[in-house]
């Protein structure tokens, strides 16, 4: 079976969609030479008109993509740094997201915002290490965080085909993964997946943390049967899929690389307890409130959710109730 790396999965999704649909164009900084090692080979195949290197004008090229979408294009905008999303939050929220409703349904804005290397890359410090997916879920922009190469391919393809704006977070912690993928296929937006079946507790893990959760589940296998649920899309969330899992296990722990206050973990817990009577109080493992990732690697790691914290949270939940 062919090995597919996470990065090449993204490359392949872009190439396949550009081949299939002339309206797909890619914009971003240094994408011609594929500085982020995602747009590799695209300019050669599709030319500089459809693979456009932009000046450092994130606000303008983000709204340029909105305008191109209003005129029929399906742009993919690549961002070099996750923190740049703060710079273009206005353009995405006030314009791309609001246009369909404000115009009474006269238009669609099918733009994909691709962030290869979201979250900590270790050693890139405060302004390069954010993971602001909860912000986009909050404003109601479709938000996906693929955990595996197959999902990276399948969710990016679905994002490009979606008639609404979609933010694709490709976590730095997952970019170097490889897996055997026979035939990469689209993955539907809004559908989660049980990565490991279990009976005692449901662990919801986001993005690269899915692999941490699987490792912890394996370590705990002697003591407890842990189910690992990967939502894949954070907005719209697969509430039915998750409720189905938690209804069976009766216990919930969420591990999420976002900040604690108003983070996606809080939303997941709130929604589950609205619908399911749990056997024990739910737990969450997140970045701290207001996290700014410090530079020194030990400090950077200290602020991110870790395996030990997750193990402790699972054990507490199993003990309670």
């Amino acid at each position, binding site marked *: 079976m062919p090995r597919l790396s996470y990065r090449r999965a993204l490359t392949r999704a872009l190439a396949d969609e550009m081949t299939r649909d002339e309206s797909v*164009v890619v914009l971003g900084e240094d994408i011609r030479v594929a500085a982020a090692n995602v747009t590799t080979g695209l300019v050669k195949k599709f030319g500089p*008109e459809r693979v456009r290197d*932009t*000046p450092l*004008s994130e*606000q*303008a*090229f*983000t*709204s*340029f*993509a*909105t*305008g*191109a*979408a*209003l*005129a*029929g*294009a399906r*742009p993919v905008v690549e961002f070099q740094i996750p923190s740049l999303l703060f710079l273009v939050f*206005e*353009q995405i929220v*006030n*314009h791309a997201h609001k*246009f*369909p*409703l*404000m*115009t*009474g*349904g*006269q*238009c*669609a*804005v*099918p733009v994909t915002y691709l962030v290869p290397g979201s979250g900590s890359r270790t050693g890139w410090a405060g302004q390069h290490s954010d993971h602001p997916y909860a912000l986009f879920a909050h404003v*109601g922009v*479709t938000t996906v965080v693929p955990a595996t190469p197959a999902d990276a391919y399948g969710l990016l393809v679905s994002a490009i085909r*979606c*008639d*609404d704006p979609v933010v694709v977070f490709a976590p730095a912690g997952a970019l170097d993964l490889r897996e055997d993928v026979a035939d990469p296929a689209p993955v539907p937006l*809004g559908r989660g997946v049980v990565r490991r079946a279990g009976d005692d507790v449901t662990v919801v893990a986001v993005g690269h943390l899915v692999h941490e959760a699987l490792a912890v589940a394996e370590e705990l296998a002697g003591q407890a049967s842990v189910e690992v649920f990967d939502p894949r899309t954070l907005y*719209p969330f697969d509430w039915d899929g998750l409720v189905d899992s938690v209804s069976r296990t009766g216990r919930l722990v969420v591990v999420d690389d976002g900040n604690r206050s108003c983070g996606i973990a809080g939303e997941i817990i709130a929604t589950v307890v609205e619908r399911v009577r749990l056997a024990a109080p739910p737990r969450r493992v997140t970045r701290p409130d207001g996290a700014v990732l410090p530079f020194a690697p030990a400090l950077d790691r200290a602020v991110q959710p870790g395996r030990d914290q997750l193990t402790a949270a699972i054990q507490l939940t199993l003990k309670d109730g």
Partner: protein
Amino acid sequence: MTGPDPAALYRTVRLIRRFEERAIELVDAGEIVGGIHPYLGQEGIAAGVCAALTAGDLVTGTHRGHGHVLAKGADPARMLAELCGRVTGLNRGRGGSMHAADFGVGVLGANAIVGAAGAILTGAVWERRRRGTDLVGATFFGDGAVNEGMLLEAFNLAALWRVPVLFVCENNGYATTMPVAGAVAGTIAGRAEAFGMPATAVDGQDPETVRAAAAAAVARMRAGGGPELIEAHTYRFDAHHTFEHRVRLDYRPPQEVADGRSRDPVEIAGGRLDPATRAEIDASVEAVLAAAVDFALAGPHPDPATALDHLYASGLTARTGGG
């Protein structure tokens, strides 16, 4: 129309003028909630620029945007229904005064975030051109927008990629209460020149002067030229927003207001017609607007159960907010 047509130009200016006056009556009557930013006094700019465009060309407007939408050809009745929040409005009552859009006539929306629309229009024109059309675009913005970084970034992108966008600055001397002299270092035209964009300053009170300048720029752009800027000097005859009708803000000297109002685009354009033609146009505009008011007020109010309609083009349904 791309050549001079004094009657057509006057008709557009007069239509916008009377539309705004009727809209203010509807604000006072409580039929338009939230008020409006009247375009009174600036009608010559939208009329002149849009007279230089063809049906397929694209436009974006501003918070003071009724004139742009009407001049590009939107139906005044559906426009007024939109201001009144009815389902028969251009945006089905979802946009209102500041977001009126009519994609059918190339209006990609009034946009209420100052300085934001230039980049959007640049992308739209670029995409249409990529599909082999020869259309151009015009994006309107006020003097307040020239200090917004995102607009200056759009100047750069359009000039760099030679996207044929006419950047039309409506310099009415103020951003709300802030005079240009208190906000703009350097000059507005100088900003365009810094990006290698030709810039023309015109008398925005004379619709024909605006039309001629826009037509010349559009001709150059259609022939393969890059973006250009027109700075149209104008004066806002009324309030920044109708809330000022209730709360008087002291920032424009009375003499300045009187001088500004003395150069009226309706009179300048109307003075070029014989009185009979002018009277005929006036009567026809009155009839159109009387019908528009009737149409607007007869339109059904939207059903609250449809408040989330059109939120997602993909068909995604949002969770509602109830317990």
